[in-house]
Each structure stands twice: as structure tokens, then as C-alpha cells.
């Protein structure tokens, strides 16, 4: 089981999009993929063409005292995914306090009894909570998504300096950074991207995802850019990301 955890350096950097596209490509390349949405905003499901009105998900199942894995879905392309589920703030708080034990996530993943070469991709929120910390700890590799923007840069330095992720050395070693939403017409974006590359050197994944109208359109069509515009640069870049991931595990 290869556990990949994707986290945005802050909200709206596009980490959910990265999860959806990476999982689709990995599936396309013949891998067995399970996507686990631990982000309460519950947006991942929309990339997989799930009914907007359908409230089910693992969290809502637990809070309705149903087994959580009954909320597993499979998209047309064969990616299995577990949405978070629609759940209000109060219920979420009580869920986090009452139902999520310290080793909840690793236990559940073990229960799934997946084969050695299957992928589990976990989508977590950019804020730290019980769920995201567990996901970070139990994953084999962490992709932290950054936008080439000043606020991302600032947030990145903050997070590294305050050791928010780096108090655990093992987390340092397995974290890699992905630059997303690079706007081709913005000189500043390129400048920040260059600074990021110089700063992070080999911790940066050698694929940059460009900001592309196709990506937005894909979500509007409830799918991923790999299907919406398979020949677009974004789709090709996500493919390169998936291949980098596979190579990372084969190394």
C-alpha cells in the first residue's frame, strides 16, 4: 500500500484538483487507486461526477452511526473514492472529539486490507486538525501544494520556521513541494517560482502545473482536466506528476 497525502500550503491552492487528477492518471496507468477525502469542505467528489445533492460520505455515515466504508464510490474511470460527506460544524466537532481515536486512520487503512501495490491518496485540509495530522503521519509521501504567490511563499517559510510540520524529522524527509497554478502571463509568478526553486532545490517536484482555463472548465463539467482536455498542457503535466510519483516509489 502506497499512501500519498496531498496538502495545500494554504487553502485554495488547488490540492483537491491535484488529488483528483493524480488519481485518475494513476488509474489510467493501470494502478489500483483509492482516494480518501479527509477535507471537510467535501469538494473532491465533484471531480468524480458525484451528485451535488448527495450528502453521503464517511463522516456523515459515522455521525449517522452507519459503517463509514458504506460510503465508498467508484467513478466511471474506475477510481474508488470515499467522500467526506455533508456535515455541519457542530457534528464535525463532536465527530473529531468522540469518534476519531489517535490511531483511527492507520487502523481503518489496515482494515481495508489493500494489496501492496495499490495507492491510497488522502486529501486533507491545509489547516492542521486531528485528521490531517494522522494522515501526514501515516503517509509514505506528502505532497505540499504551493502557488507561486507571495502569500504561499510567506506561509511556506512560516510553516518551516515554526516547525509546524517539521517537528517530526520523518515528515521532513517525505515532504515534497508541487508548484501549482503558475500563471504564464505573470512575471511575478515566475519570479516567486524561481525563488521557491532556489530555496527548496531538490525538495521541489520537477513538474510545474500551469494555470489553465481547461482546469476550471473541467470542474464545471464535474470531471478532471485529464478527461476534459487530455492533450492540454495541464493534463500532460499531471501525467508527468504521476510518473514522478511512481518513480519515487520504485527508487
Amino acid at each position, binding site marked *: 500500500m502506497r499512501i500519498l497525502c496531498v496538502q495545500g500550503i494554504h487553502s485554495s491552492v488547488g490540492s483537491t484538483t491535484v488529488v483528483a487528477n493524480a488519481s485518475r492518471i494513476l488509474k489510467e496507468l493501470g494502478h489500483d487507486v483509492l482516494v480518501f477525502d479527509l477535507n471537510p469542505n467535501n469538494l473532491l467528489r465533484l471531480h468524480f461526477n458525484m451528485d451535488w445533492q448527495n450528502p453521503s460520505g464517511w463522516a456523515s455515515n459515522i455521525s449517522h452511526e452507519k459503517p463509514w466504508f458504506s460510503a465508498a464510490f467508484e467513478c466511471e474511470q474506475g477510481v474508488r473514492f470515499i467522500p467526506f460527506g455533508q456535515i455541519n460544524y457542530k457534528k464535525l466537532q463532536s465527530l473529531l472529539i468522540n469518534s476519531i481515536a489517535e490511531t483511527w486512520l492507520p487502523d481503518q487503512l489496515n482494515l481495508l486490507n489493500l494489496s501492496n501495490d495499490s495507492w491510497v491518496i488522502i486529501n486533507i485540509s491545509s489547516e492542521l486538525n486531528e485528521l490531517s495530522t494522522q494522515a501526514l503521519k501515516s503517509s509514505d509521501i506528502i505532497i505540499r501544494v504551493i502557488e507561486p504567490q507571495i502569500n504561499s511563499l510567506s506561509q511556506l517559510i512560516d510553516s518551516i520556521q515554526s516547525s509546524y510540520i517539521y517537528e517530526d524529522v520523518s515528515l521532513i524527509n517525505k515532504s515534497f513541494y508541487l508548484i501549482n497554478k503558475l500563471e*504564464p*502571463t505573470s512575471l511575478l509568478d515566475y519570479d516567486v517560482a524561481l525563488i521557491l*526553486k532556489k530555496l527548496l532545490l531538490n525538495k521541489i517536484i520537477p513538474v510545474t502545473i*500551469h494555470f489553465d482555463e*481547461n482546469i476550471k472548465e473541467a470542474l464545471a463539467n464535474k470531471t478532471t482536466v485529464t478527461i476534459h*482536455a487530455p*492533450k*492540454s498542457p495541464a493534463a500532460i503535466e499531471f501525467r508527468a506528476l504521476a510518473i514522478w510519483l511512481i518513480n519515487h516509489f520504485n527508487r
Partner: protein
Amino acid sequence: MSTRDHFNKDTKLPIDVKLFFIINQSTIGKDWVVFKKTLLADNTPLFSILVGIVFFAFCYDDNRKNAAQIFKKHFPHVNFSEPTLADILRFFLQLLWLSTVQSNRTKNKIINLDFIYLALTFIKLSLLLPLEKISISTDRMLNKVEISNMSLSNKFESQIYLLFAGLLAIICFSVPFTTSAQVTFSLLLLFVAFLAYSTPGKLPRLVLITLSVTISSRYLWWRYNSTLNIDNSLDVFFGVILIFAETYAWIVLLLGFFQIVWPLERKPLALPEDTSVWPSVDIFIPTYNEPLEIVKTTLLAALDIDWPKNKINVFVLDDGNRPEFKIFANEVGAGYITRDNNNHAKAGNINHALTITQGDYIAIFDCDHVPVRSFLQITMGSFLADIKLALVQTPHHFYSPDPFERNIGNFKRTPNENNLFYSVVQDGNDLWNASFFCGSCSILKRDPLLEVGGIATETVTEDAHTALRLHRKGYSSAYLNIIQASGLATESLSAHVGQRIRWARGMAQIFRIDNPLLGKGLSISQRLCYTNAMIHFLGGIPRLIFLLAPLGFLLFHSYLIYAPAIEILLYAAPTLIHANIANSYIQGRYRYSFWAEIYETVLAWYIARPTTVALINPKIGKFNVTAKGGLIEKDYFDLSISKPYLTLIVLNIIGIVLAVYRYFFGPDDEQLTVILNFAWTAYNLILLGGAISVAQETKQLRTNQRIEANTEIIIKNNSGHLFCATLRDFSSAGVGLYINDETKLEKNEIIHILIPRGDKEFLFPVRITHENKNYIGAIFEKLTIQQQLEFTQCTYSRSDAWSLWNQNFAKDKPLSSLISILKVSFHGYLILLRMLPQFITKPFLLLSSFISYIKTLLPKNIIDNTLEYKDA
């Protein structure tokens, strides 16, 4: 329209598809539709549909799906959709060819020749493998020895060896043989040469050179001793002329071997880590009358060279005193130097700039030679390692076709004229510390340069002369065979000839006023290298002699070589064969066999006079600038420049006619001599046809040469959508793109292209000017100076922009090279024929079109690329 649509609309089914449905074979029916669509056109006559069905019916089940592809691949020249009778002939000839000669490609073999092939391979390998081992181990041994120091380290011993070798050589050259002994000797040497030719390494190289020197010296010895007929004054007259030309050729051959016996293949040396100790460099871009558009790119690229900012200064040396150059230079932050006279042209221009600037080193680029960004870091290390080093030269590389390449149409397929000098000769010179200054793409050290009085102004080839002076002062030079700049080739044959006339005149001038064989300060090897570089340009007259020599016998019935024909053949043929084998082995990928002859034939007449004049009075003659980057608006034949070739052709044709006459009506014992002279004349005519072919100027419409590229880029259109494309070609004015998507772009639409370089990307606005299927042409939409600089960075001045350019050429194959020369020459005569009155040309043109028709009937070799396909 997919095949599925076909079957839904039953009413519109064509009759032949229905047939399959009637016999209830719908899967075959589907395959047939695909087959028909790929192979046959829509309006195919019923007859060929029937033929198609017959072929189709013969296919096996598993092949049926790809049947059309297989047919297309194996019968590329057969038109299946509208076959003529000839197509049927083509089909069966090809079938025969595939089943016999190319039988290993197909499954059914009729004749099996494998065992013969295997036996031949076995014999060849058993001979060659041990030789290869020997060659490799000697290479290893020789690499440990510093060749250049060998003669110095133990002078006495080496002199003994030299004496011994010299004595042996003289015996070899002078011992007279009987005819049968000469035959045996020649065959043995040829056998050894064949073995050496097939073995890679330095030892075989030396063996081939030794063989060629031996056999050619033997030839010359024989010529001087037994072939001059002193009794007949006409024979003596022609004989002496010919033997003079032959002696010249022999000297050039020997000096040439000496020059390139062991190319040094220098590697760049590292600079110190601390950039503050790097020396300061001035970059000079001399210009006189070239348009700003050309100089712009060079200037921007020069400013982008990776060197500490406070240690590099770029100067435009404008001898044209043009204000727009000054404005542009100021705008981009380069220096601008001009002067109130134009004395001594480029040399004077540089010397004047030397008095104004202060850099420790001077890098010089002709205004169209765009340097790459790594230029200084690649070259400067050598200077810091060797205090006596005064010059580093890098190759001149051209991204546009030279007149030979453009007019013959072999750009990037055959190594060009330049290639030999910069890939082999300069590297060979470097071993003897005699690589010389070529005027551009090079760095000079200021102090030594000032010590010899700046750039030499006495001759029109100031570069070679300056290097000679530096060498005389005991400074050394280095050659780095790494392409670090690229420029424009001369635009037309007449410009090319003009440039070569200047070089030839200049070299002759130096030979006369500052002869490298005389004077102080040079080592023997340097003297020899310089001498060869100079007398190489004196080859005009000897070449003309060779082009006319057979006429001496055919026209005047004079025995130029006073010996029996069979003896001439036995001495001359091995000489020519060995020289060609050795040169083909050494020059391999950089000059294909026989091409040198074409180049020399083209120049011979034009350099003959100026070199002779310069030898007599070196002061006559003026400097002419080589025009570059011009337009040739339509194809035309340069009649004025080809007049000498036309005269020579007429003379040689007379020779051919006379040869035929003498063969049939002359004395019987002369027949072999006639045949020899006939062959010689025919060969001369082949060379002259090649020269004619080059004089047919092919049109060149762009001022800015488009350079081929293959870079993945991204396009951003106005709606914010990105899509992938490939950069196919570029110039400083625009780009050609191949769109991999079915995305439509409108003409005149303004889009942005995103070109990567390393981990950076650069964005440029372009306007689409034309589109053709997936290819679009676009021109830049008002680039800022910064954007122009960025575009240069990710195209012209990428450090690897040209480094792989010359590595694509395959090894020389003398026979196929001869065939391509024949084609070029044939083409030349066709051009001539078209200019003659119609009643003469018509039969010839008919013959030529008949030949090309017959050629379409011949079977084609099918190259099997299925393996590649699978890998991809």
C-alpha cells in the same frame, strides 16, 4: 466518420460492403471498409475495387485489420486508388523484389542466401577482430605518450629512428619493380588498407597514412625517373606542366597528412571557483554595412554571456558610423565605438578599439556570429592554465545553408565545406601548436596582441597573419572543437567565391611577405602547418591543369606520361585509391569522399589569378566584405560566374569526341591509352557538372534565416486556454509551430507562446500569419528589448544550441558519395540542357524523363521500422 456510422445507415451502404453482409460476414465487412478507406480513394473505379477485394481476400484473419497499412508500407510507389498498367508492373516487380532480395523481411523465402552471407561475415570478422584488439591496445598505449613532447625528450634516439625510417622509405619509393611485382605489391597494400579501413582506432589511421605516402611517393619517383620523354619537345612541355601539378598535389597530400595525423581534441578546462579572480574580457562585434537586424541578435547574445558583470564589456565596432547602431547599443547597455576613417577595414577597426578599451582579453565575433551563453566559461579556462597562451579559437558554424548546400539541396545531410577545417584540420593543427586565428568566435590575450602590434594589417587575411606573428613570438594557441557561436553562411555562390578569393589572395600575400618557412620563432611543425594552410590556396592552377591534362593527348597527341598505358594504370590507380581511402578514413564524418574535388573545381579558376598576382606583387588587391543575409528572389542561373566552367566543359566534350574518334580510327596499340584519357575526361566532366549545379541559385526569400528546432512549448490563447505545440523553426522575427491538438487558431489572431529554458519559461506575443493543417507560422508582435533578449536566451544563445548539429552525420561511404556526386553532376547538365535551343534539348529531356519514369518502376527497399514502433 467512424465505421459504426456506416452500419447504422443501411441504405447508404456501398455495394461492395453490402456483399459482405449478404454472405453474413459483418466483421470482415467492417475490416474491408477500413481497408478501402486507407488504401483507396473515394471515387475509385469498380475495377480497382475488385482488385482490392482479391488482395483482401488473400489476407489471413489476424492480418486483415492492418492489411491496408501493410500494403501501403510494402508498395509505397504503387497507386492503388487509380492504378495504371505501370502500377501493375510496379506491383509485381516489387513482389518479386520482396520475395527474393529482401526476403528476410518477409516470411516466405524463395532463395536462401544466408549461408553465403554468414560465411563472408565469418571470414571478415576472423580477419578484423584480432586487428581491432591490436588497435585498441595501441590506442591505450599511445594515449599515455605525449606525442608533441616525444621528439624533444630524447633527441638523439629519435633522430636515429627518423634516419632509419627515412632510409627504409627511400628504398620503398625507389626500388623498381617488374609489372607483375608492381601488381602483387599494389594488391597486398590494398588488402592491408582494406583491413585497416574497417578497423577503428589510431593505429589503422597511421597505417593508412603510411601506405598512402609510400605508394604516392613511389608514383612520383617513377614519374620523375621514367616517364618524361625528353626527345619530344611537345611531350616535355606538357609533361613538365603535368608533373608540376602532380608534385604540388603530392606535397599538399603529405602536408595534409602531417597536419591531421593526430587531432588533439582538447577539452575545456575549469575556471577557479572564486569568480573575483576571473580576468576581464572585452567583446568586440565589428560591423561595417550589415543591417542592424543582424547585429541585434549578436549583441543581445553577447550581453547574455555568463561572465561577472564588472568583468565583461561588450562593444559594437561600427565602421559604418550609423546613428541607429549607437542608439541601440546605448539602449541595451553596450559600448559603441566608431572612427573617422576606415583604414585597414576590420583589422583597423579592431586595432582602433584596442586603444580605447582595457580588458585583459578580447573576444571577437563577426556581427552575424551569435555566441552562446557558455562561450567564455568554456574557453577561458585554457588561458588561466597556460600563461603563454595568446589565442583560443572555436569553430565557425553556420545555421543557414551555404551556396553549395542550398543550390545542391543537401543542407544537414552532407557535411559542408567548412566542416573539415573546423572539425579535423584545426584540431590537427592544435597538436603542433599551430591552430590559427579565424577572425571570429575566438579570444585573444591583450598583451601578446599588442606586443605583435595588434591585428596585422599588411594582408587581407589579417587573422591568419596575426596568429603567425603570435606564434613567431613564442606564444601558443589553442583550438576547442565545441560550437559556441553560430552565424550566417554566404548568401550566393558569387559571394562565396568572392570570400574565397580574398582568403586565397591573403594567404598568398602572407606566403610572400612573411613566409612561414623562413624567419625566426617557429617550430618545424608550425612551419609545415602554416605552409600547408597557405599553399592549399595555390591549388587553382594545378586543378586547372588536371581538368585539361587529358586534352594534351586527345587534342595534341602528346604523351604527357611517357609510359605504357598499363604501367600508368598500375602506378596511378593505387595512388588515387590509397589517397582516397586514407582521406575517407580520417575525414570520415566531416567531409564525404569526392566532395573536396567539387569544391576545388568551383574555386580553381577564380583563385588561380589572384594568388598568382599576390605571389608576384602582394600589394595589389583590395579587401572586400562578405555580404550575408541577403535575398535571392527567384531561381536563376549565375551565367557570369559559370563561364569558366562552361569553357572547360566544351573543351572536355571535344576531348570526349576525339577520344571516341581515336579509339576507332587511331592505331590499335593506343586504345588503352585512349580509354585511360577518356575516363579521366569523363571524371573531369562529372566535376564540372557539379560546379554547374552549384551555379544554379535557388531562391531564398527570408532575410531572417529560419532555424530548425524541435522544442516542446505551450501556447496560451486569448480565452486563457493553454495547449501544447512544438517549436519547429525560429528566427529573430518569428516562429513556426506545430500544434499537436485539433485546436483551431485564426489568422491574425494574437496568441502567447511559452518557451522553456531549463527551469525558466519565457512568454512572447505572436501574431499568426499563416496556417496549414497543424503547422502555423507567426511573427512577433512588438517585442520589448527585454523580450528580445529573452528570446535570444532560449533559442540562439542556449549553450547546447549547436553542439549536436554536426554529430548527426554518418560515416563516409565512398561509393554512395560517388553516386550522390554523379546525381549532382547530372543535375548540372540538365540545367545546361534547358538553356540550349529546344531542338537540341528535346531528345535529352525525353531521355531524362524516360529514365526517371523507369526509376519509378523499380522495386523499393522497405525499411522495417516495426521494432521502433513497438518500443515507442
